[in-house]
C-alpha cells in the first residue's frame, strides 16, 4: 500500500487569501443570518393584524403546529399540520423512488454508449433542466387539464389532484437524478462488466451486484438533490395540485401570505430545515463509512 503524503501546499497558492472575504461575508450575513432569524421568529409572537412579529418569546407557534385544543378545551395532537408534514415526506419519498427506478437505468444506458452519443444524450437530458420550472409544470397543466390531451385520449382529469403534483414533481426532478448518477457511471470501467458477463453472471446480477454498487456515490447525490427540494416544493402543488392537498411548501407560503402567521410559518420552516439536516447528516455519515 503506497502511503501518499498530503502535500501541504503553502496556503494562498492561487492568490491572496483575503479575496475570499466577500464570499464569507455574504455567507454569514445572507445565508447564516436568515436561518438564525427564521429560527428566532418561530419563537416569537404573531404580530397584530397578522403582519410580522412581536418581539415576545412564546412557544405558541410550535404549539399550534403540534397540538390543537378543541371547543371543549381538550388538547390533542394537531393532525392537520402533522398530516401535511407526513404527506410531504411521503410524496418526496415516492418521487425520489420513481426517479431512482427510472433514472438509474437511464443514466447507465447513456454511460454505456460511445462518447459522441453520450454527449448528445446528456445534452438532451440537460435541456429540460434549463427550461423554467414554471413552463415545465405548465406543460402538465396542459396535458392533464379538462379537455387536455390526456382527457381527450380518454384518461381521467388528473389536474388539481395529488397525482398531478406527483407527476409534475417527478418530471421536474428526473434530470436532477440522472445527471449525478451518469457522472458516476461514465467513470465505470467497462471491462469489469465484460469480465462479469464472462464469468456467467446474468444481466440482472451484473446490474444489481456490480454496476449499482459501483455508482452508489452518484445515487446518493441524486437522492439528496431530489428528495430535499421535493420536500419543500411549492410550484407544483400550487399549479398542479390546485392547493387542494396542502404540502409543507404551500403551507409555509400560506402562513407568510394569506394566513399571516409568521411564527407558525417560521416554525414549519424550522421543522423542514431540521428534516433536511437529518437527511444531510445521515448521507454524510454513510459516505464517510463507505470511504474509510
Amino acid at each position: 500500500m503506497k502511503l501518499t503524503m498530503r502535500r501541504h501546499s503553502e496556503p494562498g497558492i492561487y492568490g491572496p487569501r483575503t479575496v475570499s472575504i466577500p464570499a464569507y461575508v455574504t455567507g454569514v450575513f445572507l445565508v447564516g443570518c436568515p436561518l438564525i432569524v427564521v429560527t428566532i421568529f418561530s419563537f416569537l409572537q404573531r404580530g397584530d393584524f397578522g403582519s410580522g412579529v412581536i418581539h415576545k418569546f412564546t412557544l405558541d407557534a410550535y404549539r399550534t403546529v403540534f397540538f390543537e385544543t378543541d371547543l371543549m378545551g381538550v388538547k390533542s395532537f394537531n393532525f392537520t399540520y402533522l398530516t401535511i408534514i407526513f404527506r410531504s415526506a411521503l410524496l418526496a419519498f415516492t418521487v425520489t423512488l420513481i426517479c431512482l427506478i427510472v433514472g438509474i437505468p437511464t443514466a447507465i444506458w447513456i454511460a454505456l454508449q460511445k462518447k459522441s452519443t453520450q454527449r448528445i444524450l446528456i445534452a438532451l437530458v440537460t435541456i429540460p433542466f434549463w427550461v423554467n420550472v414554471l413552463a415545465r409544470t405548465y406543460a402538465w397543466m396542459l396535458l392533464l387539464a379538462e379537455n387536455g390531451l390526456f382527457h381527450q385520449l380518454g384518461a381521467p382529469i388528473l389536474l388539481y389532484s395529488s397525482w398531478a403534483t406527483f407527476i409534475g414533481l417527478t418530471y421536474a426532478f428526473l434530470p436532477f437524478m440522472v445527471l449525478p448518477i451518469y457522472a458516476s457511471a461514465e467513470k465505470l470501467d467497462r471491462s469489469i462488466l465484460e469480465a462479469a458477463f464472462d464469468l456467467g453472471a446474468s444481466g440482472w446480477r451484473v446490474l444489481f451486484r456490480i454496476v449499482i454498487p459501483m455508482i452508489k456515490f452518484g445515487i446518493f447525490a441524486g437522492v439528496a438533490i431530489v428528495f430535499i427540494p421535493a420536500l419543500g416544493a411549492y410550484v407544483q402543488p400550487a399549479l398542479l395540485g390546485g392547493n387542494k392537498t396542502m404540502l409543507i411548501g404551500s403551507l409555509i407560503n400560506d402562513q407568510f401570505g394569506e394566513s399571516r402567521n409568521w411564527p407558525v410559518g417560521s416554525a414549519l420552516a424550522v421543522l423542514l430545515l431540521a428534516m433536511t439536516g437529518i437527511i444531510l447528516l445521515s448521507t454524510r455519515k454513510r459516505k464517510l463509512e463507505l470511504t474509510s
Partner: protein
Amino acid sequence: MAEDTGWADLAIAGVSKSFRDPKGAEIKALDDVTLSIPTGEFVVLLGPSGCGKTTLLRSIAGFEKIDAGFINLGGKRIDQLPPHKRPVNTVFQSYALFPHMSVAENIAFGLENEEIPKDEVRSRVAQVLELVEMSALAERKPSQMSGGQQQRAALARALAKKPKALLLDEPLAALDLKLRKSMQIELKRIHRATGTTFLFVTHDQNEAMALGDRIAVFNNGQLQQVGTPFEIYTAPKTEFVANFIGESTVLVGEVKGQSFNGDGLTINNLAQTINDTNGAKLIIRPEALSLITGKSQCGQVTIKEVIFAGDALEVLLLTSTGREVKVKSDVSLLSQLVIGEKIELFVDVEQIGQLA
C-alpha cells in the same frame, strides 16, 4: 558565460519535517538532515520513492515548512522566507510552464517580478534562450512543444533569474531514454556555463552517478551518505547504500588481525582500513570477486544461477551458510559453470569495504 552568483554556499542543518498520514500517524519525511553544499557544486539527491529527497528540495524552495533546523544560503537564513523571496528557483518534474504564455513570456515573468527594466528583461530572455538552445522557439506556447523542449523552457525560466541555487525535481523523469541521456549532457554543460549550484533529485542511480559532483543518498528521511560517485560506489557506509547503488555482496562474520572469517569463507590480508570487530559486515562489488585463480582465495561456493548479460556474466552463488554472492565474470566461463556445482571463490582484497 560563467556567472558569478557570489557566495552561495548552501547549508542545511538539522532539518526535520513530519507529516500526518490520513490515519493520524506521524511520518518523518526528513529526520535531522545535515548537508553542506559549496557554491557551484552539482549535487544529486538520490533515493527511493518517499525517502525525503523531494521534501528536502521543496523545503529549500519554500513550499514546505520545516519543523526543526535551519537552511542558510550564502550566509543568509532562508527557511523562514516565503518562496517568492528566496534566491532559489525550481525546475518542476511536470515543467509547470504557464499555458497561456509563450516561452519568452514565461521566462520574462520571473524577471518582471524583480522590477527589471524592459530592455534588460528582453536581453536576458534572449541570453538564456541561447544558453538552452531554444532561441527559435521563443514565441511558441507550451502546448505546441515537445516534452524535451518544454523541459528546456522550464530550465531557461528558472535560470533567467540567476538564482543562487537551482533546484531540479526529477526533471528528466518524463523523457525517453535517449533524450534523457542527451539532456544529462546538456545539463552538465549548462551547469559549467553558469557556475550555479545545482540540486538535482532523482531515484535513478545511474543518472545520479552520471551527473553529480557529489551524491547524497537518502532513505526514510535520513541522509545515509554523502560523497562523490566513486566514494559512494566503492565505499558505501551502510547496507542500504551498498544495495541501492550497484550490486553488492555483503558478508557477515568476524574480523581479527586483518583476517575475516564468516559465512563459510576466509579472507586474509585485508586492508588496514578494515577494523577488528565481531559483527563485521564486509561489502564486495561483483567485479571485485572472481572465479578464476589469481587473486586471494576465500573458499568454496555453490553455483546457483548464471545470467548472460551481453558483455559479462552475472553469476549468483551461495556460500555454505546460504549467503548470496554476486560475481561479475568473463563470458568465456559460460561453458564451465554448471549449476549446483561447487567452485572456488577469489577476491581482490583491496576493493573490500566495511559497513558500519
